């Protein structure tokens, strides 16, 4: 039996997914949450095999929840569920240290398939893909001196995130307290996370240059 926990702020979405999952004989939904705060406590309490997390939550991000939970209990695998596109989703999943991502697409997403694979311990995101994500983040930020570039620590941490390590594991590798790692990652996420589109817009506006065009 695969034990699944659902985190999404839309009740309709949770209900739809739950209905779909419970129709499968080998899958059981052990709990649901609508906010990041609820999710942290309940996931650790119910110890599911897989937590399905929406990226956008009213009080935070599924990425943070995933990292927190996995630091406490690395046995819980995470599957990021998002209404955004693949490009956005893969960033989120890599940063979250999730096993994979599923975009909100009823037939095409292969949710059940992905769920079974993740439960069996398969990583859906190939390491070369995580590598690309990290590479892209580093490139983008080096190219933008105006956007606060990542600190050295943040740069150290990025590839470890891509390896899928939890905050605790990263702390052990770098000789930092888990709490410290968590702070670095929060800073990193707020710089890169799903805010990056808005930041790109801001950057673009701030960088207006060249002769006036009247």
């Amino acid at each position, binding site marked *: 039996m695969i034990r699944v926990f659902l985190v999404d702020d839309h009740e309709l979405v949770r209900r*739809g997914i739950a209905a*779909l999952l419970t129709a499968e004989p080998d899958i059981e939904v052990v709990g649901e949450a609508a906010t990041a705060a609820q999710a942290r406590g309940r996931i650790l309490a119910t110890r599911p095999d897989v937590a399905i997390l929406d990226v956008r939550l009213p009080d935070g991000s599924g990425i943070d929840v995933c990292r927190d939970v996995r630091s406490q209990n690395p046995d819980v695998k995470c599957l990021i569920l998002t*209404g955004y*596109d693949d490009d956005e989703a893969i960033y989120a999943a890599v940063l979250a240290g999730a096993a994979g991502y599923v975009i909100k697409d009823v037939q095409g997403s292969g949710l059940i398939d992905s769920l079974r694979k993740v439960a069996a311990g398969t990583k859906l995101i190939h390491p070369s*893909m995580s590598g*690309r994500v990290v590479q892209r983040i580093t490139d983008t930020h080096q190219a933008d001196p105006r956007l606060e570039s990542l600190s050295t620590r943040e740069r150290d941490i990025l590839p470890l995130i891509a390896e899928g390590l939890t905050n605790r594991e990263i702390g052990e590798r770098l000789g930092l307290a888990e709490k410290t790692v968590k702070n670095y990652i929060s800073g990193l996420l707020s710089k890169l996370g799903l805010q990056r589109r808005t930041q790109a*817009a801001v950057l*673009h506006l701030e960088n207006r240059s060249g002769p006036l065009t*009247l």
Partner: protein
Amino acid sequence: MTDAPSFTFPDDARGELDKALGDLMSRAQDVLATQGRLRALLRANQAVIEHIDLPVVLQRIVEAAVELVGAQYGALGVISPDGGLEQFIHVGMPDELATEIGHLPEGHGLLGALIEDPHAIRIPELSDDPRSVGFPAHHPPMHSFLGVPIRVRDEVYGNLYLSNQSSGEFSDEDESLVIALAATAGIAIENARLFAETHRRQAWAAASAEITAALLSSDEVDVVSTLATRVLTLSDADVVWVLQATDDDDYMRVETARGIDEELIQGTRVAVTGSLSASVLEGRQPRLVDDSAEYNLVLSGGRALGPVMAVPLVSLGRATGVLLVGRLRQAPRFRRSDLEMAADFAGQASVAMELAEARTTRERVALLEDRGRIARDLHDHVIQQLFAAGMELQTVAGATSPQIAERISKTVADIDGSISHIRTVVFALSRPAAERNTTVRHAIIDLANEVAPRLARTPNVSFSGPVDLIITGSLADDVIAVVREALMNVVKHAAAQNTSVELAITDDEIQLRITDDGHGSEGSSRRSGVANLEHRAAQRGGSFDFRSDETGTQVIWSVPIGDPA
């Protein structure tokens, strides 16, 4: 001898008395005459100072001088800063005669002597004087001459020239009187100048206030053009141009032109190298040029600019434009106060431009915010609800008959299609236009929009998989080129109703599918159009498939995913 008493007056004494009486009468007459002349001087002074308009004042001075000393001809020459005569106001010479003589005196000969040494000159016969250079043809003969300088403050402003005194030659007294009149004239000129300057500053202040008001108003008035119009009138110029830097460093553009040839000049590009504008931009200092011949500022009909003022427009510390104010060649030069005024307006023009840019930026921010909000709404509500509804339907399908399940499944597929479209829209809305083309997805969306006007409908674009992450560098160039060629083929040959572009990343390959429902391939022309696509696929070890019949055409272009570019 008779004894009759004879009353005789000694001859000697009588002679003395007569003489005394005669002297007395003559003195009295002299006094009367002098009094008369002094009265005439007073009248002349009054005539000169009762006017305030400079051209009128100058005219009156000459008329009064001529009357005062009984001269036949009189003139006033205004000295230009470079030494010659700038203006020549004459009295007594009929206009037609002046026209016949042609040019006005330029300040040579005797007139020049007076400019060089500003002291009164009095000559009984001009032709006897060595300094005289003679007269031009048609000039009436002149004999006696009196020249007196007019000083304004401590500067020699000009000279009064009088000739042909009615009784033959000018007297000491004539000279004294004209010198006295010249002193008054100096004051009158100074007053008229001050008055004109005050008047000008007033007009300038009024125009400034008007422009400031326009700047502050929220209406989208073209402040720069209002400003150019005001500068044109206030500085008595023939042209006013506002030049702006362009993307091309070698050229500037005349954004606003007022005055002669304004329609012709507005919008033209001007080479920067060696131009007056370039020197002003570089030095960041306004320039006053008396003769701009070296810059060759030519207008239509062989006219050219002479005196020119050029002021840099500095915005946010950068000099990005130039305000150029010019008069035609031969026109009076600009003065320092004109430059001051032009600089003042240039400052306002800079503010106007900054404001206009800030306004554009604000609008752009508002637009971006608006787009962001729409994208968020689509994502947070529309996609979630469609997805949830699809999930429910999917669940229901499992519990019904196979026929109904099939229909539901079709509906769910439609819902997925909608979600995918919305996702593409959300993506397209989320990034500012200037950043486009940096990713494959934006480039393809832009291509679809670009060909849309030439198709029945905008092509449907959908993506699946982390397209932007995988397709970068030269691979991106290839994909974009393939989409462009395939879409152009549809535009040229297919007459399609619906076109779609699907780009998908699967586990190991990139697949690009372009389909249309047009009337299919006709002959070889379309086939040759796709040869290039085939080549691009082959080079990457991929495949290319082209199928076309009367119901439509499908192009599938796929290449393996390589190592990160």
